[in-house]
């Protein structure tokens, strides 16, 4: 399989995540979409790294994994806080700030 295949796969995963973020109303689903988007980049990085024989991409992927996990943990923490204060996890009902 060539580089093209991996890049296409990554692009598809990225778009699925993007679609999820835009269409979903449940905040947890939106978080899932963002995770998909961030992790699709790892496919790109590792594929580029593999096909160019340069390890920077793989190192980058390790850092990306760590950062996405911290981001997910923080996101979940904010959702829990949101639920405690507002009793909802639906994005549409978050409308205190407007104008």
């Amino acid at each position, binding site marked *: 399989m060539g580089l093209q295949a991996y890049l296409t796969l990554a692009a598809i995963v990225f778009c699925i995540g993007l679609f999820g973020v835009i269409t979903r109303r449940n905040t947890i689903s939106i978080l899932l979409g963002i995770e998909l988007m961030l992790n699709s980049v790892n496919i790109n990085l590792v594929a580029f790294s593999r096909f160019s024989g340069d390890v920077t991409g793989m190192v980058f992927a*390790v850092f990306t994994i760590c950062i996405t996990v*911290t981001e997910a*943990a923080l996101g979940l923490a904010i959702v829990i806080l949101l639920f405690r204060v507002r009793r909802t996890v639906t994005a549409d009902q978050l409308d205190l700030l407007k104008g």
Partner: protein
Amino acid sequence: MNGWLGLVIMIVLAVGYAGVMIGLSLLLGPKNPTPEKLAPYECGMPAVGDARERHSVKFYLVAMIFLLFDIEIAFLYPWAVALRDLGWAGFVQLVTFFLILSVGYVYVWRKGVLDWGPAARVRHPAERKAA
């Protein structure tokens, strides 16, 4: 084939160690079973019941903290592979990394996140020391 010998030894050691440990605890440990102790997960949520039951937010807190500290191990694997090439400089850098990480751990611990049970919520580390 020789390259796999190490792996075979590793597997035998791992299985053997686990077996010996379980065997020893069966032979030597005191036995007075209660229903809690016989449950699949002695600590944690009841394994059988309504799936929509509400759980304490403590579980999520600990899960998230586990996730954060667990993922940092990802940095250990590349270092372990390149251990000899990186030498002492690499070792010092990794120790620094873990020192910073342990500051976070000490913070979590002193803040009482790891204390389990209803009493932990009202008690502060300083008071506990005084008590």
